[in-house]
Protein backbone atom coordinates (compact mmCIF):
# COMPACT_ATOMS: atom_id res chain seq x y z
CA UNK A 1 0.00 0.00 0.00
CA UNK A 2 1.33 3.39 -0.95
CA UNK A 3 1.51 5.77 1.98
CA UNK A 4 -0.35 9.06 1.37
CA UNK A 5 2.26 11.77 0.76
CA UNK A 6 1.70 13.90 3.83
CA UNK A 7 4.46 16.08 5.19
CA UNK A 8 6.10 14.48 8.23
CA UNK A 9 5.33 17.50 10.42
CA UNK A 10 1.62 16.99 10.03
CA UNK A 11 1.86 13.27 10.57
CA UNK A 12 3.40 13.82 13.96
CA UNK A 13 0.59 16.04 15.20
CA UNK A 14 -2.52 14.18 14.05
CA UNK A 15 -3.18 10.63 12.98
CA UNK A 16 -2.74 10.09 9.27
CA UNK A 17 -5.91 9.07 7.39
CA UNK A 18 -4.25 5.71 6.91
CA UNK A 19 -3.92 5.15 10.65
CA UNK A 20 -7.43 6.42 11.20
CA UNK A 21 -8.66 3.93 8.63
CA UNK A 22 -6.87 1.11 10.44
CA UNK A 23 -8.30 2.11 13.81
CA UNK A 24 -11.77 2.56 12.42
CA UNK A 25 -11.81 -0.91 10.89
CA UNK A 26 -10.21 -2.96 13.66
CA UNK A 27 -11.36 -0.97 16.70
CA UNK A 28 -14.75 -2.65 17.23
CA UNK A 29 -13.20 -6.11 17.29
CA UNK A 30 -10.18 -5.10 19.34
CA UNK A 31 -12.33 -3.35 21.93
CA UNK A 32 -14.69 -6.32 22.04
CA UNK A 33 -11.94 -8.89 22.61
CA UNK A 34 -10.16 -6.69 25.14
CA UNK A 35 -13.30 -6.01 27.19
CA UNK A 36 -14.83 -9.46 26.98
CA UNK A 37 -11.76 -11.69 27.02
CA UNK A 38 -8.55 -9.91 28.03
CA UNK A 39 -10.07 -8.10 31.01
CA UNK A 40 -11.95 -11.17 32.29
CA UNK A 41 -8.77 -13.25 32.04
CA UNK A 42 -6.77 -10.64 33.94
CA UNK A 43 -9.54 -10.53 36.53
CA UNK A 44 -9.41 -14.32 36.85
CA UNK A 45 -5.65 -14.18 37.33
CA UNK A 46 -6.22 -11.59 40.05
CA UNK A 47 -8.83 -13.79 41.74
CA UNK A 48 -6.26 -16.60 41.97
CA UNK A 49 -4.27 -14.45 44.39
CA UNK A 50 -7.24 -13.42 46.55
CA UNK A 51 -8.66 -15.08 49.62
CA UNK A 52 -11.80 -17.16 49.64
CA UNK A 53 -14.72 -15.38 51.35
CA UNK A 54 -17.48 -17.10 53.34
CA UNK A 55 -19.78 -17.40 50.29
CA UNK A 56 -17.14 -18.48 47.83
CA UNK A 57 -16.55 -14.90 46.72
CA UNK A 58 -13.00 -13.70 46.34
CA UNK A 59 -11.87 -11.20 48.95
CA UNK A 60 -8.88 -9.16 49.92
CA UNK A 61 -6.18 -9.56 51.23
CA UNK A 62 -4.01 -10.95 48.48
CA UNK A 63 -2.45 -14.27 49.38
CA UNK A 64 -1.05 -17.49 47.97
CA UNK A 65 -3.65 -19.48 49.93
CA UNK A 66 -5.32 -20.82 46.79
CA UNK A 67 -2.06 -22.29 45.52
CA UNK A 68 -1.48 -23.94 48.90
CA UNK A 69 -4.93 -25.47 48.62
CA UNK A 70 -4.24 -26.58 45.08
CA UNK A 71 -1.16 -28.37 46.40
CA UNK A 72 -3.43 -30.18 48.85
CA UNK A 73 -3.16 -28.18 52.09
CA UNK A 74 -6.61 -27.72 53.60
CA UNK A 75 -8.29 -27.33 57.00
CA UNK A 76 -7.73 -30.98 57.75
CA UNK A 77 -4.06 -31.00 56.86
CA UNK A 78 -2.54 -32.24 53.65
CA UNK A 79 -4.32 -34.58 51.28
CA UNK A 80 -3.05 -35.74 47.90
CA UNK A 81 -6.41 -35.45 46.05
CA UNK A 82 -5.68 -32.26 44.09
CA UNK A 83 -2.16 -33.36 43.23
CA UNK A 84 -3.49 -36.68 41.93
CA UNK A 85 -5.91 -34.71 39.75
CA UNK A 86 -3.08 -32.55 38.42
CA UNK A 87 -0.88 -35.56 37.76
CA UNK A 88 -3.74 -37.46 36.15
CA UNK A 89 -4.40 -34.52 33.80
CA UNK A 90 -0.75 -34.46 32.86
CA UNK A 91 -0.58 -38.24 32.44
CA UNK A 92 -3.76 -38.42 30.35
CA UNK A 93 -2.49 -35.57 28.19
CA UNK A 94 0.86 -37.27 27.57
CA UNK A 95 -0.67 -40.69 26.84
CA UNK A 96 -3.43 -39.34 24.60
CA UNK A 97 -1.05 -37.05 22.69
CA UNK A 98 1.44 -39.89 22.21
CA UNK A 99 -1.22 -42.26 20.89
CA UNK A 100 -2.68 -39.56 18.67
CA UNK A 101 0.78 -39.06 17.13
CA UNK A 102 1.16 -42.81 16.51
CA UNK A 103 -2.26 -43.00 14.84
CA UNK A 104 -1.99 -39.75 12.91
CA UNK A 105 1.37 -40.45 11.20
CA UNK A 106 0.17 -43.39 9.08
CA UNK A 107 -3.16 -41.65 8.41
CA UNK A 108 -1.56 -38.43 7.23
CA UNK A 109 0.96 -40.34 5.14
CA UNK A 110 -1.76 -42.47 3.61
CA UNK A 111 -3.73 -39.36 2.60
CA UNK A 112 -0.63 -37.72 1.13
CA UNK A 113 0.12 -40.69 -1.17
CA UNK A 114 -3.50 -41.15 -2.27
CA UNK A 115 -4.69 -39.93 -5.69
CA UNK A 116 -4.82 -36.15 -5.71
CA UNK A 117 -8.55 -35.87 -6.35
CA UNK A 118 -9.33 -37.91 -3.21
CA UNK A 119 -7.16 -36.06 -0.73
CA UNK A 120 -9.55 -33.20 0.12
CA UNK A 121 -12.40 -35.66 0.65
CA UNK A 122 -10.23 -37.86 2.85
CA UNK A 123 -9.18 -34.92 5.00
CA UNK A 124 -12.81 -33.91 5.26
CA UNK A 125 -13.73 -37.44 6.36
CA UNK A 126 -11.24 -37.17 9.21
CA UNK A 127 -12.41 -33.72 10.27
CA UNK A 128 -16.21 -33.98 9.98
CA UNK A 129 -16.84 -35.93 13.23
CA UNK A 130 -15.12 -33.18 15.20
CA UNK A 131 -17.73 -30.71 13.98
CA UNK A 132 -20.44 -32.30 16.08
CA UNK A 133 -20.90 -31.16 19.63
CA UNK A 134 -18.39 -32.68 22.03
CA UNK A 135 -21.15 -33.60 24.48
CA UNK A 136 -22.79 -35.65 21.74
CA UNK A 137 -19.50 -37.30 20.78
CA UNK A 138 -18.86 -38.29 24.39
CA UNK A 139 -22.44 -39.56 24.57
CA UNK A 140 -21.76 -41.74 21.53
CA UNK A 141 -18.90 -43.39 23.41
CA UNK A 142 -21.13 -43.83 26.45
CA UNK A 143 -23.51 -45.71 24.18
CA UNK A 144 -20.68 -47.88 22.90
CA UNK A 145 -18.89 -48.61 26.17
CA UNK A 146 -21.68 -48.97 28.72
CA UNK A 147 -22.30 -52.35 30.39
CA UNK A 148 -23.89 -54.99 28.16
CA UNK A 149 -22.67 -53.51 24.88
CA UNK A 150 -20.66 -55.74 22.51
CA UNK A 151 -17.39 -53.93 23.26
CA UNK A 152 -17.87 -54.33 27.01
CA UNK A 153 -18.72 -58.01 26.54
CA UNK A 154 -15.55 -58.57 24.55
CA UNK A 155 -13.56 -56.89 27.32
CA UNK A 156 -15.30 -59.11 29.89
CA UNK A 157 -14.54 -62.21 27.84
CA UNK A 158 -10.85 -61.39 27.99
CA UNK A 159 -11.11 -60.64 31.68
CA UNK A 160 -10.18 -56.99 31.29
CA UNK A 161 -13.15 -55.88 33.37
CA UNK A 162 -15.34 -57.63 35.93
CA UNK A 163 -18.69 -59.24 35.07
CA UNK A 164 -21.61 -56.82 34.54
CA UNK A 165 -19.18 -53.93 34.28
CA UNK A 166 -18.84 -51.52 31.41
CA UNK A 167 -15.72 -50.06 29.84
CA UNK A 168 -17.03 -46.71 30.99
CA UNK A 169 -16.67 -44.94 33.39
CA UNK A 170 -12.93 -45.42 33.52
CA UNK A 171 -9.57 -43.82 32.81
CA UNK A 172 -9.46 -45.92 29.66
CA UNK A 173 -12.69 -44.34 28.41
CA UNK A 174 -11.24 -40.87 29.08
CA UNK A 175 -8.09 -41.64 27.08
CA UNK A 176 -10.21 -43.02 24.26
CA UNK A 177 -12.43 -39.93 24.33
CA UNK A 178 -9.42 -37.62 24.23
CA UNK A 179 -7.89 -39.47 21.27
CA UNK A 180 -11.23 -39.36 19.48
CA UNK A 181 -11.59 -35.62 20.07
CA UNK A 182 -8.13 -34.53 19.05
CA UNK A 183 -7.05 -36.91 16.27
CA UNK A 184 -8.02 -34.45 13.48
CA UNK A 185 -5.89 -31.71 15.08
CA UNK A 186 -2.83 -33.89 14.53
CA UNK A 187 -3.71 -35.31 11.11
CA UNK A 188 -4.16 -31.87 9.51
CA UNK A 189 -0.74 -30.33 10.30
CA UNK A 190 1.03 -33.65 9.68
CA UNK A 191 -0.67 -33.95 6.32
CA UNK A 192 0.41 -30.41 5.46
CA UNK A 193 3.99 -31.46 6.26
CA UNK A 194 3.79 -34.70 4.23
CA UNK A 195 2.32 -32.75 1.33
CA UNK A 196 5.48 -30.64 1.09
CA UNK A 197 7.77 -33.60 1.66
CA UNK A 198 10.71 -33.87 -0.69
CA UNK A 199 10.13 -37.38 -2.07
CA UNK A 200 13.57 -37.38 -3.66
CA UNK A 201 15.16 -37.62 -0.24
CA UNK A 202 13.30 -40.82 0.57
CA UNK A 203 14.25 -42.35 -2.75
CA UNK A 204 17.84 -41.32 -2.19
CA UNK A 205 17.80 -42.93 1.24
CA UNK A 206 16.29 -46.12 -0.18
CA UNK A 207 18.79 -46.13 -3.05
CA UNK A 208 21.51 -46.02 -0.44
CA UNK A 209 20.01 -49.21 1.03
CA UNK A 210 18.51 -47.57 4.11
CA UNK A 211 15.92 -49.82 5.73
CA UNK A 212 12.34 -48.42 5.73
CA UNK A 213 12.73 -47.60 9.41
CA UNK A 214 16.01 -45.77 8.88
CA UNK A 215 14.58 -44.02 5.82
CA UNK A 216 11.64 -42.84 7.87
CA UNK A 217 13.76 -41.74 10.79
CA UNK A 218 16.41 -39.90 8.81
CA UNK A 219 14.61 -38.71 5.67
CA UNK A 220 10.92 -38.36 6.53
CA UNK A 221 10.70 -37.58 10.22
CA UNK A 222 12.86 -34.44 10.25
CA UNK A 223 10.83 -32.98 7.41
CA UNK A 224 7.53 -33.46 9.25
CA UNK A 225 8.81 -32.06 12.52
CA UNK A 226 7.13 -28.66 12.18
CA UNK A 227 3.77 -30.35 11.54
CA UNK A 228 4.31 -32.68 14.46
CA UNK A 229 5.10 -29.73 16.69
CA UNK A 230 2.01 -27.78 15.61
CA UNK A 231 -0.14 -30.87 16.11
CA UNK A 232 1.33 -31.57 19.54
CA UNK A 233 0.44 -28.07 20.72
CA UNK A 234 -3.02 -28.23 19.15
CA UNK A 235 -3.72 -31.57 20.85
CA UNK A 236 -2.00 -31.33 24.21
CA UNK A 237 -3.16 -27.86 25.28
CA UNK A 238 -6.89 -28.47 24.89
CA UNK A 239 -6.51 -32.05 26.16
CA UNK A 240 -4.91 -30.77 29.36
CA UNK A 241 -7.89 -28.47 29.99
CA UNK A 242 -10.56 -30.92 28.78
CA UNK A 243 -13.75 -30.79 30.80
CA UNK A 244 -16.53 -32.66 29.00
CA UNK A 245 -14.75 -35.97 28.30
CA UNK A 246 -13.48 -36.69 31.83
CA UNK A 247 -16.78 -35.56 33.32
CA UNK A 248 -18.92 -37.83 31.17
CA UNK A 249 -16.61 -40.77 30.47
CA UNK A 250 -14.45 -40.74 33.59
CA UNK A 251 -16.78 -40.82 36.55
CA UNK A 252 -15.55 -39.58 39.93
CA UNK A 253 -12.25 -41.48 39.98
CA UNK A 254 -10.90 -40.13 36.69
CA UNK A 255 -11.24 -36.42 37.46
CA UNK A 256 -9.04 -34.00 35.54
CA UNK A 257 -8.02 -30.41 36.17
CA UNK A 258 -10.96 -29.02 34.17
CA UNK A 259 -13.47 -30.63 36.53
CA UNK A 260 -11.55 -29.43 39.56
CA UNK A 261 -11.64 -25.86 38.25
CA UNK A 262 -15.28 -25.97 37.18
CA UNK A 263 -16.35 -27.46 40.51
CA UNK A 264 -14.94 -24.47 42.39
CA UNK A 265 -17.18 -22.12 40.43
CA UNK A 266 -20.41 -24.06 40.92
CA UNK A 267 -20.84 -26.57 43.71
CA UNK A 268 -17.59 -26.23 45.63
CA UNK A 269 -17.62 -22.44 45.49
CA UNK A 270 -14.00 -21.51 46.04
CA UNK A 271 -13.26 -19.04 43.28
CA UNK A 272 -9.61 -18.42 44.19
CA UNK A 273 -8.82 -22.15 44.13
CA UNK A 274 -10.59 -22.55 40.78
CA UNK A 275 -8.83 -19.51 39.39
CA UNK A 276 -5.46 -20.90 40.54
CA UNK A 277 -6.19 -24.09 38.57
CA UNK A 278 -7.23 -22.03 35.55
CA UNK A 279 -4.01 -20.02 35.83
CA UNK A 280 -2.01 -23.24 35.54
CA UNK A 281 -3.89 -24.07 32.34
CA UNK A 282 -3.25 -20.58 30.99
CA UNK A 283 0.45 -20.88 31.76
CA UNK A 284 0.54 -24.29 30.09
CA UNK A 285 -1.11 -22.75 27.01
CA UNK A 286 1.33 -19.85 26.84
CA UNK A 287 4.25 -22.19 27.49
CA UNK A 288 3.17 -24.49 24.70
CA UNK A 289 2.77 -21.65 22.22
CA UNK A 290 6.09 -20.14 23.24
CA UNK A 291 7.89 -23.46 22.90
CA UNK A 292 6.36 -23.96 19.49
CA UNK A 293 7.46 -20.54 18.26
CA UNK A 294 10.95 -21.08 19.64
CA UNK A 295 11.52 -24.52 18.22
CA UNK A 296 9.58 -23.61 15.09
CA UNK A 297 11.93 -20.72 14.37
CA UNK A 298 14.94 -22.97 14.69
CA UNK A 299 13.38 -25.51 12.33
CA UNK A 300 12.20 -22.79 10.00
CA UNK A 301 8.63 -22.54 8.80
CA UNK A 302 7.09 -23.49 12.11
CA UNK A 303 4.89 -20.41 12.10
CA UNK A 304 2.27 -21.77 9.77
CA UNK A 305 0.01 -23.50 12.21
CA UNK A 306 -2.87 -25.20 10.50
CA UNK A 307 -6.13 -24.76 12.33
Amino acid at each position, binding site marked *: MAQPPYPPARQRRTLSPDTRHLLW*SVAPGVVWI*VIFLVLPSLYLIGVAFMTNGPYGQPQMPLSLESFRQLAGFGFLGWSPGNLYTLLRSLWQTVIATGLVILIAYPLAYHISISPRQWRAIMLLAVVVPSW*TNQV*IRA*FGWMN*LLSPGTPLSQVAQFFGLIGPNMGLYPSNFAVTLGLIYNFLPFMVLPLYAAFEKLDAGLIEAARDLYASPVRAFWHAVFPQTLSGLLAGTVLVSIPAFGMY*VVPELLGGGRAMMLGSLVAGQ*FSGGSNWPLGAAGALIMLLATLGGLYAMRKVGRRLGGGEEVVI
Partner: protein
Amino acid sequence: MKRTPFTRGLSVFWWLMIAFLYLPLGVIVLYSFNSANSAAFFAGFSLRWYERLLGNDQLLTALGNTLALGVASSVIALVIGTLIGYGMYRHRGRKLGWLVALIYLPIVMPDIVFGISEMAFFITMDREFGILGPSLATMIIAHVTFQIPFVALIVYSRFVGLDPTLFEAAKDLYASPAQRARHFLLPTLKPSLIAAFFLAFTLSIDDFVISFFTAGPENATLPIYIWGAIRRGVSPEINAIATLMILTVAIAAVISLLFNKEGRRS
Protein backbone atom coordinates in the same frame (compact mmCIF):
# COMPACT_ATOMS: atom_id res chain seq x y z
CA MET B 1 1.30 -45.77 -6.42
CA LYS B 2 2.70 -49.28 -6.30
CA ARG B 3 0.68 -51.59 -4.16
CA THR B 4 3.04 -53.13 -1.68
CA PRO B 5 2.15 -54.95 1.56
CA PHE B 6 3.05 -51.68 3.29
CA THR B 7 0.57 -49.52 1.36
CA ARG B 8 -2.09 -52.21 1.66
CA GLY B 9 -1.56 -52.20 5.41
CA LEU B 10 -1.90 -48.42 5.43
CA SER B 11 -5.17 -48.69 3.57
CA VAL B 12 -6.57 -51.23 6.04
CA PHE B 13 -5.49 -48.98 8.94
CA TRP B 14 -7.17 -46.02 7.24
CA TRP B 15 -10.52 -47.80 7.03
CA LEU B 16 -10.25 -49.02 10.61
CA MET B 17 -9.71 -45.45 11.79
CA ILE B 18 -12.60 -44.17 9.69
CA ALA B 19 -14.76 -46.76 11.45
CA PHE B 20 -13.38 -45.55 14.78
CA LEU B 21 -14.26 -41.95 13.90
CA TYR B 22 -17.79 -42.65 12.71
CA LEU B 23 -18.83 -45.48 15.04
CA PRO B 24 -19.94 -43.29 18.00
CA LEU B 25 -21.99 -41.04 15.72
CA GLY B 26 -23.43 -44.01 13.83
CA VAL B 27 -24.50 -45.67 17.06
CA ILE B 28 -26.36 -42.53 18.13
CA VAL B 29 -28.20 -42.37 14.81
CA LEU B 30 -28.96 -46.10 14.90
CA TYR B 31 -30.30 -46.11 18.46
CA SER B 32 -32.40 -43.03 17.81
CA PHE B 33 -34.57 -45.39 15.72
CA ASN B 34 -34.51 -48.17 18.33
CA SER B 35 -37.96 -49.33 19.41
CA ALA B 36 -36.57 -50.59 22.74
CA ASN B 37 -35.21 -48.38 25.50
CA SER B 38 -31.71 -49.84 25.44
CA ALA B 39 -28.19 -48.93 24.48
CA ALA B 40 -27.13 -52.58 24.36
CA PHE B 41 -29.26 -54.04 21.56
CA PHE B 42 -31.37 -52.88 18.66
CA ALA B 43 -34.91 -54.25 18.89
CA GLY B 44 -36.56 -52.80 15.80
CA PHE B 45 -37.22 -49.62 13.85
CA SER B 46 -39.42 -46.97 15.40
CA LEU B 47 -39.89 -43.21 15.41
CA ARG B 48 -41.25 -43.07 18.94
CA TRP B 49 -38.31 -41.05 20.34
CA TYR B 50 -38.72 -38.44 17.64
CA GLU B 51 -42.45 -38.21 18.43
CA ARG B 52 -41.59 -37.69 22.09
CA LEU B 53 -39.33 -34.78 21.20
CA LEU B 54 -42.24 -32.81 19.81
CA GLY B 55 -44.11 -32.92 23.11
CA ASN B 56 -41.12 -31.87 25.19
CA ASP B 57 -41.52 -28.16 26.02
CA GLN B 58 -38.15 -27.81 27.75
CA LEU B 59 -36.47 -29.18 24.70
CA LEU B 60 -38.33 -26.90 22.30
CA THR B 61 -37.35 -23.91 24.47
CA ALA B 62 -33.72 -25.08 24.34
CA LEU B 63 -33.99 -25.36 20.56
CA GLY B 64 -35.30 -21.79 20.39
CA ASN B 65 -32.46 -20.55 22.61
CA THR B 66 -29.89 -22.35 20.48
CA LEU B 67 -31.17 -20.82 17.26
CA ALA B 68 -31.54 -17.32 18.72
CA LEU B 69 -28.04 -17.48 20.17
CA GLY B 70 -26.54 -18.89 16.99
CA VAL B 71 -28.13 -16.36 14.63
CA ALA B 72 -27.66 -13.28 16.83
CA SER B 73 -24.03 -14.01 17.67
CA SER B 74 -23.13 -14.94 14.09
CA VAL B 75 -24.59 -11.70 12.69
CA ILE B 76 -22.68 -9.54 15.18
CA ALA B 77 -19.47 -11.52 14.71
CA LEU B 78 -19.85 -11.29 10.93
CA VAL B 79 -19.91 -7.48 11.02
CA ILE B 80 -17.07 -7.06 13.54
CA GLY B 81 -14.93 -9.86 12.13
CA THR B 82 -15.28 -8.64 8.53
CA LEU B 83 -14.10 -5.17 9.57
CA ILE B 84 -11.04 -6.68 11.26
CA GLY B 85 -10.28 -8.90 8.28
CA TYR B 86 -10.53 -5.87 5.98
CA GLY B 87 -8.36 -3.70 8.24
CA MET B 88 -5.74 -6.44 8.56
CA TYR B 89 -5.56 -6.76 4.80
CA ARG B 90 -5.44 -3.07 3.90
CA HIS B 91 -2.73 -2.44 6.49
CA ARG B 92 -0.81 -5.67 6.13
CA GLY B 93 2.36 -3.66 5.42
CA ARG B 94 2.38 -2.42 9.00
CA LYS B 95 3.54 -4.27 12.06
CA LEU B 96 0.31 -5.88 13.21
CA GLY B 97 1.76 -8.63 15.40
CA TRP B 98 -0.20 -7.39 18.40
CA LEU B 99 -3.43 -7.62 16.39
CA VAL B 100 -2.68 -11.15 15.22
CA ALA B 101 -1.86 -12.21 18.79
CA LEU B 102 -5.11 -10.66 20.02
CA ILE B 103 -7.09 -12.45 17.32
CA TYR B 104 -5.49 -15.79 18.09
CA LEU B 105 -6.13 -15.42 21.81
CA PRO B 106 -9.78 -16.62 21.71
CA ILE B 107 -8.72 -19.56 19.52
CA VAL B 108 -5.88 -20.86 21.66
CA MET B 109 -7.37 -20.24 25.08
CA PRO B 110 -8.69 -23.49 26.61
CA ASP B 111 -12.48 -23.25 26.49
CA ILE B 112 -12.89 -23.93 30.19
CA VAL B 113 -10.61 -21.00 31.10
CA PHE B 114 -12.45 -18.88 28.51
CA GLY B 115 -15.86 -19.79 29.92
CA ILE B 116 -14.93 -19.45 33.56
CA SER B 117 -13.17 -16.11 33.24
CA GLU B 118 -16.21 -14.71 31.42
CA MET B 119 -18.52 -16.18 34.03
CA ALA B 120 -16.52 -14.70 36.91
CA PHE B 121 -16.40 -11.37 35.08
CA PHE B 122 -20.14 -11.30 34.32
CA ILE B 123 -21.17 -12.33 37.83
CA THR B 124 -18.91 -9.69 39.39
CA MET B 125 -20.17 -6.99 37.02
CA ASP B 126 -23.73 -7.98 37.93
CA ARG B 127 -23.00 -7.84 41.65
CA GLU B 128 -21.09 -4.56 41.60
CA PHE B 129 -22.90 -2.60 38.89
CA GLY B 130 -26.08 -4.53 38.17
CA ILE B 131 -25.15 -5.10 34.53
CA LEU B 132 -24.25 -8.19 32.48
CA GLY B 133 -26.02 -10.67 34.74
CA PRO B 134 -25.95 -14.17 33.19
CA SER B 135 -28.58 -14.27 30.47
CA LEU B 136 -28.97 -14.88 26.77
CA ALA B 137 -27.18 -11.56 26.23
CA THR B 138 -24.04 -12.67 28.06
CA MET B 139 -24.06 -15.91 26.08
CA ILE B 140 -24.25 -13.92 22.85
CA ILE B 141 -21.33 -11.74 24.01
CA ALA B 142 -19.23 -14.81 24.80
CA HIS B 143 -20.05 -16.50 21.50
CA VAL B 144 -19.26 -13.39 19.47
CA THR B 145 -15.88 -13.28 21.22
CA PHE B 146 -14.84 -16.71 19.97
CA GLN B 147 -16.48 -16.27 16.53
CA ILE B 148 -14.75 -12.98 15.60
CA PRO B 149 -11.31 -14.54 14.90
CA PHE B 150 -12.69 -17.18 12.54
CA VAL B 151 -14.70 -14.63 10.54
CA ALA B 152 -11.71 -12.28 10.41
CA LEU B 153 -9.37 -15.02 9.20
CA ILE B 154 -11.77 -16.21 6.47
CA VAL B 155 -12.32 -12.67 5.19
CA TYR B 156 -8.61 -11.85 5.41
CA SER B 157 -7.62 -14.94 3.44
CA ARG B 158 -10.20 -14.06 0.79
CA PHE B 159 -8.65 -10.61 0.38
CA VAL B 160 -5.16 -12.06 0.18
CA GLY B 161 -6.33 -14.19 -2.74
CA LEU B 162 -7.50 -11.09 -4.65
CA ASP B 163 -5.50 -9.18 -7.22
CA PRO B 164 -4.33 -6.04 -5.32
CA THR B 165 -4.63 -3.92 -8.47
CA LEU B 166 -8.42 -4.32 -8.27
CA PHE B 167 -8.43 -1.92 -5.32
CA GLU B 168 -6.41 0.62 -7.27
CA ALA B 169 -8.67 0.21 -10.28
CA ALA B 170 -11.76 0.94 -8.22
CA LYS B 171 -10.09 4.03 -6.82
CA ASP B 172 -8.89 5.19 -10.24
CA LEU B 173 -12.44 5.07 -11.51
CA TYR B 174 -13.33 7.70 -8.90
CA ALA B 175 -15.60 5.39 -6.96
CA SER B 176 -16.46 6.80 -3.54
CA PRO B 177 -15.75 4.57 -0.52
CA ALA B 178 -19.46 3.73 -0.26
CA GLN B 179 -19.62 2.86 -3.97
CA ARG B 180 -16.48 0.77 -3.70
CA ALA B 181 -18.00 -1.14 -0.81
CA ARG B 182 -21.28 -1.71 -2.64
CA HIS B 183 -20.09 -2.53 -6.13
CA PHE B 184 -16.72 -4.10 -5.52
CA LEU B 185 -16.05 -5.26 -1.94
CA LEU B 186 -19.36 -6.80 -0.98
CA PRO B 187 -19.97 -8.71 -4.22
CA THR B 188 -16.46 -10.21 -4.23
CA LEU B 189 -16.71 -11.00 -0.54
CA LYS B 190 -20.20 -12.48 -0.68
CA PRO B 191 -19.29 -16.18 -0.83
CA SER B 192 -16.72 -15.75 1.93
CA LEU B 193 -19.21 -13.85 4.07
CA ILE B 194 -21.76 -16.63 3.69
CA ALA B 195 -19.08 -19.19 4.53
CA ALA B 196 -18.01 -17.16 7.56
CA PHE B 197 -21.58 -16.81 8.76
CA PHE B 198 -22.21 -20.54 8.59
CA LEU B 199 -18.88 -21.35 10.22
CA ALA B 200 -19.72 -18.94 13.05
CA PHE B 201 -23.18 -20.50 13.35
CA THR B 202 -21.68 -24.01 13.44
CA LEU B 203 -19.19 -22.96 16.11
CA SER B 204 -22.04 -21.53 18.16
CA ILE B 205 -24.16 -24.68 17.95
CA ASP B 206 -21.11 -26.82 18.65
CA ASP B 207 -20.11 -24.99 21.76
CA PHE B 208 -21.00 -26.44 25.11
CA VAL B 209 -18.45 -25.37 27.71
CA ILE B 210 -18.55 -21.61 27.14
CA SER B 211 -22.36 -21.56 26.89
CA PHE B 212 -22.61 -23.68 30.02
CA PHE B 213 -20.67 -21.21 32.14
CA THR B 214 -22.17 -18.00 30.78
CA ALA B 215 -25.83 -19.07 30.67
CA GLY B 216 -28.46 -17.90 33.09
CA PRO B 217 -30.74 -20.52 34.66
CA GLU B 218 -33.39 -20.09 31.97
CA ASN B 219 -31.13 -20.04 28.93
CA ALA B 220 -30.36 -23.73 28.43
CA THR B 221 -29.34 -24.44 24.86
CA LEU B 222 -29.64 -27.87 23.26
CA PRO B 223 -26.12 -28.99 24.28
CA ILE B 224 -26.80 -27.81 27.84
CA TYR B 225 -30.12 -29.65 27.82
CA ILE B 226 -28.45 -32.82 26.54
CA TRP B 227 -25.72 -32.50 29.16
CA GLY B 228 -28.36 -32.23 31.89
CA ALA B 229 -30.31 -35.18 30.49
CA ILE B 230 -27.18 -37.35 30.43
CA ARG B 231 -26.38 -36.42 34.02
CA ARG B 232 -29.91 -37.20 35.19
CA GLY B 233 -29.81 -40.61 33.53
CA VAL B 234 -29.74 -41.50 29.89
CA SER B 235 -32.99 -41.35 27.98
CA PRO B 236 -33.24 -42.66 24.40
CA GLU B 237 -34.69 -39.29 23.41
CA ILE B 238 -31.16 -37.93 23.62
CA ASN B 239 -30.22 -40.13 20.68
CA ALA B 240 -33.02 -38.59 18.63
CA ILE B 241 -32.15 -34.97 19.42
CA ALA B 242 -28.44 -35.69 19.01
CA THR B 243 -29.13 -37.19 15.58
CA LEU B 244 -30.94 -34.03 14.54
CA MET B 245 -28.01 -31.94 15.74
CA ILE B 246 -25.48 -34.08 13.89
CA LEU B 247 -27.56 -33.57 10.75
CA THR B 248 -27.84 -29.79 11.25
CA VAL B 249 -24.13 -29.34 11.83
CA ALA B 250 -23.27 -31.52 8.83
CA ILE B 251 -25.52 -29.42 6.58
CA ALA B 252 -24.23 -26.08 7.90
CA ALA B 253 -20.64 -27.29 7.56
CA VAL B 254 -21.14 -28.43 3.97
CA ILE B 255 -22.73 -25.07 3.06
CA SER B 256 -19.80 -23.24 4.66
CA LEU B 257 -17.27 -25.37 2.77
CA LEU B 258 -19.00 -24.97 -0.58
CA PHE B 259 -19.17 -21.19 -0.30
CA ASN B 260 -15.62 -20.91 0.98
CA LYS B 261 -14.41 -22.94 -2.00
CA GLU B 262 -16.44 -20.79 -4.38
CA GLY B 263 -15.03 -17.68 -2.71
CA ARG B 264 -11.49 -18.87 -3.28
CA ARG B 265 -12.08 -19.94 -6.85
CA SER B 266 -13.72 -16.77 -8.20
